């Protein structure tokens, strides 16, 4: 089966996020006051072939640990979306 997987990578809590801070400072210029805690991260979308959802999650998590996120400065979340069976025909 092929699983759609979304990985969200964010700066860890406590790590400065200059992009988020800059956006937060820019928003009042457009009249948006009362906006705090802006953080900027990245979303990585993957299609992973695996037998089960657990296997897809385990593989994505391993990829995060080894490449997709740098655990010194970044935290990640793995979300498994819909599954598709290749060549499933009636």
């Amino acid at each position: 089966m092929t699983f759609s997987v979304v990985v969200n990578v964010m700066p860890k809590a406590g790590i400065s996020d200059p992009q988020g801070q800059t956006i937060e400072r820019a928003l009042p210029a457009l009249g948006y006051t009362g906006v705090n805690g802006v953080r900027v991260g990245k979303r990585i979308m993957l299609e992973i072939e695996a037998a089960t959802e657990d296997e897809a999650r385990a593989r994505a998590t391993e990829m995060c640990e080894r490449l997709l996120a740098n655990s010194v400065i970044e935290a990640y979340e793995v979300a498994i979306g819909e599954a598709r069976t290749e060549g499933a025909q009636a």
Partner: protein
Amino acid sequence: MRARVGVVVFPGSNCERDCVKSLSQLGAETELVWHDDPVLPEVDIVVLPGGFAHGDYLRTGALARFSPIMQAVTDHAERGGLVLGVCNGFQVLCETGLLPGALHKNKGLKFMCKWTELRVDNAATPFTSRASTGSVLKIPINHFEGNWYCDPETLQGMRERDQIVLRYVDNPNGALDDAAGIVNENGNVFGLMPHPERACDELLGSEDGIVLLGSAIDHVLKTTPARV
């Protein structure tokens, strides 16, 4: 005898020739080493130069770590060989795990290209022996992701072992503890954001880079048995 230096070239490296020129002027035998080569030539010092290895995609230095040469560089470091990472090379060393911490975007969210003053806080490393502790070097920076960070426990251990070798006099990028250059626990792997190879000639504004590059060459000549 001359020190032998291999300067690694990744796709996107752009400071390798400056490194070759400055190290050659200091008497080293230098050669360029392609990142895709799984073995290093016989060298005493490996230099990872500045630039944008593999386009800096995903994170700076993140993909360079998978270049075949990096296993050989890791083996060289584990044997006690000297490894110097400048700017992007420093980022690669952190991503590879040869140095602690990580480099993220400058505090002011600006690419910075300017002269900086660096205080030598540990002159007892193979890369700083020509300096005295407390002396100040004038060497330029040229980066967007030079804001070094590590967790508090790691930082404490590094301070106790004097691993933060160079500190900015006037921190330009938000780096933790003003760190501009750090060494590993054994002291044989050194990464710094400033570019010593760009400060090896009075015509360019400073010769202080020679202090760092020359120290590494001195170390090799002092510690390597004579070669025929």
